């Protein structure tokens, strides 16, 4: 079920009413209702997905308990391996198996019918919930959290519908305890949740989807357009991606607030970053943190890799981690290149330099807001996101080549999105103006009187209805 669908518009109030009016008395009722709602929400895509998420939940629940009960280190490790291998195995089979086979075939020139590729669809949100549960078992193993003893709570933790299909990827230490206590309805929190939800819908439906029309056309046939049009398309994609994904996160966090939950912030104005390193502290924060804690740090601290100095391990770790971040987005070489490019830049930005006699890292110097640091970051993002968006390396190459080789850098005015560009401007101004808050409407009553506030809300609803493109899927669902 999509957040921007009619179905969700019906689903949410029904679940909300049942949750607080019937389930409001006891934790168990609340959790049962959330679990049923979450499984329904997920099962609407394809009921078979439910079997997989249920199986994954069971594996990780019992892996967590085994780790806690095991007396010897060997058994604890075995339980972690079972959980990690299961989750990564599922991810590999559904998401990467065909890509892996195709790569092997093309590398070794193996005849077409030697291996059979799988004719399967990738369950929505697979990459998100598998990472969440891998994090759980590793945290139990590292004794950062106690294992869950309540299967119902754990099933809720894995399948919590607001963040199930596209994050934020929550840590068990943050989300799981929230299922253990009774949620009490708080007017202010629910109001804030509704406001954030409305803002997220505006970003997704009005800004992202309308920009997406022009982006789609330009990326489909870059060879038909001049340099300026292609740069324009690449820039628009930058904002489409942000509005789409951060819009989703706002809806997810806002919806969770309606049910008394607090989810992690996933975006902090990533495009005002002064460096690529800074960008990843602001973009998809929960994913960056996940990779940092479960991949990068273990890689750097792994002293068993002999013959490589710690500083070299850091460089390798950055490139390796960012390559995986790229691949996490999808089984395609374009994502890998996107990740490698970011890894390389982050590694370069980690090079120490001397400024006024002080030894600092390059990104620290950039982060201080030196001239051209923002244009540098945005330019790099635009180029790297061409790989992210393109269907193939050839297509990305064509786009980049066209930018530099078009004889006549004409602009195709049919892609001017007209008045709709104003919505993008509204989004940018609102988010910059309220940059100290997690969404522009947070504590808005302190600065804007009620009449104007309501006018703004009605304007956003009008824009959503008038300029909406119903049932347009979120970009990050495919990951």
């Amino acid at each position: 079920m999509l957040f921007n669908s009619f179905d969700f518009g019906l689903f949410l109030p029904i679940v909300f009413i049942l949750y607080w009016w019937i389930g409001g008395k006891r934790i168990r009722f609340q959790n049962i209702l959330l679990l049923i709602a979450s499984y329904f929400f997920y099962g609407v895509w394809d009921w078979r997905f439910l079997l997989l998420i249920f199986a994954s939940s069971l594996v990780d629940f019992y892996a967590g308990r085994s780790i806690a009960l095991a007396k010897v280190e060997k058994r604890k490790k075995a339980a972690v391996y079972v959980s990690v291998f299961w989750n990564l195995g599922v991810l590999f089979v559904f998401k990467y198996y065909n890509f892996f086979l195709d790569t092997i075939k093309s590398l070794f020139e193996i005849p077409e019918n030697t291996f059979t590729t799988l004719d399967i669809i990738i369950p929505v949100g697979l990459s998100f919930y598998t990472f969440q549960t891998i994090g759980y078992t590793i945290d139990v193993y590292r004794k950062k959290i106690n294992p869950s003893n309540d299967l119902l709570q754990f099933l809720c933790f894995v399948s919590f519908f607001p963040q199930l299909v596209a994050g934020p990827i929550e840590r068990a230490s943050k989300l799981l305890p929230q299922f253990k206590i009774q949620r009490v309805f708080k007017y202010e929190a629910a109001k804030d949740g509704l406001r954030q939800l409305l803002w997220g819908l505006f970003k997704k439906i009005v800004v992202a989807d309308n920009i997406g029309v022009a982006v789609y056309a330009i990326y489909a046939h870059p060879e038909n357009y001049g340099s300026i049009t292609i740069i324009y398309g690449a820039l628009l994609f930058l904002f489409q991606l942000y509005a789409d994904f951060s819009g989703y996160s706002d809806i997810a966090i806002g919806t969770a607030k309606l049910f008394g939950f607090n989810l992690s912030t996933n975006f902090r104005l990533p495009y005002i970053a002064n460096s690529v390193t800074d960008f990843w502290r602001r973009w998809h924060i929960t994913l960056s943190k996940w990779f940092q804690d479960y991949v990068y740090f273990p890689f750097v601290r792994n002293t068993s890799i002999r013959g490589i100095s710690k500083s070299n391990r850091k460089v390798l770790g950055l490139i390796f981690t960012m390559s995986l971040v790229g691949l996490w987005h999808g089984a395609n070489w374009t994502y890998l290149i996107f990740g490698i490019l970011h890894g390389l830049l982050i590694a370069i930005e980690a090079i120490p330099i001397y400024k006024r006699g002080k030894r600092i890292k390059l990104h620290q110097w950039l982060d201080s807001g030196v001239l051209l640091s923002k244009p540098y970051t945005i330019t790099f993002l635009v180029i790297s996101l061409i790989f992210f968006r393109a269907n193939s390396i050839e297509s990305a190459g064509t786009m980049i080549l066209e930018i530099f080789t078009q004889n006549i850098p004409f602009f195709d005015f049919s892609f001017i999105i007209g008045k709709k560009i104003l919505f993008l401007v509204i989004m940018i101004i609102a988010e910059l103006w309220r940059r100290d808050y997690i969404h522009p409407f947070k504590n808005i009553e302190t600065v804007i009187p009620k009449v104007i506030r309501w006018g703004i809300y009605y304007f956003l609803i009008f824009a959503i209805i008038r300029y909406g493109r119903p049932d347009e899927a979120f970009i990050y669902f495919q990951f």
Partner: protein
Amino acid sequence: MIKKFSLHTLLFLIPVVIAYGIVEQYTRSLPLSPKIKSDYLNTHHNDIETLVLGASQNRDAINPEFLSSRTLNLAYPDQDYHVSYKVLKELSSRLPKLKTVIIPISYGHFETASSQTDTWKNSMYKYYFEVTVSDKFTYFKENLLYISYPNYYTSKIKEHRKGKSSLDFNDYGYNNDISYGKFYKLNYDSLSIAKSSIHSTPEKENISFVSENTEKLKAIIAYCKSNEYTPVFVITPTTKRFRDQRIPGVLHRRDSIVSLMKSLYDIKLLDAENGDAYELTDYRDDNHLSPSGAKIFTKRLNVFLQKYK
């Protein structure tokens, strides 16, 4: 607290619901093509002998005014075989004298994905013709017109308020307005037209869709046969430059399927794809006829239908 919150939310939403209700009602009252066709269907359903299915090519090429038998043209943009089948199946009970069903054989029909996610289709067919085209569970949202395609309906509301809409529709719902065609906008200037891009689907081979679309076409034919309707295949005229840029593989598969169907089910085909005899002014664009082209083509279709009656 929860009661207060629910009450405040409801109060906040009341103006939204009222405003939307007004827009929705206004949209429903617009004299759009489906509204005219819906009225025509309601008035003449007992006399309709020919039903035209298909996408925009058939919508623009067949003007029932020039056919001898009473005809309802229900071809609409992006109408794939899945939708055509639903329209035929669900409408046939209301058309007791139906004898002939015109089935489109366009360039792209076999290799274009069935697009059931287009909410405007569900709402349009449901509201105007009481046909449920979606396979999925449907409820009240399928009856909401405006929100199913806000861009389109907003432009129609604006046109209507300026007094522009419905002036050129005939009684059968055929649109005689030539101004929305690409060639008209280019002043029928052959040089400008030659320079302009050609829109055609599919842009690449999509073999995976062939089987599903063929099955749907077979279902339409089977339904016609079981109800003793005469199915007639129609390929509408296209310009040379349109024909030249078609993908040979797509074309070959289409022609193979059509040949097979013709021989298996004894179906007549009116192949007018080579539209070189038509003037530029007979086209709206490379594969859509203008009203003057539709007049020529429909008369030819009429002769064809009379011949096999």
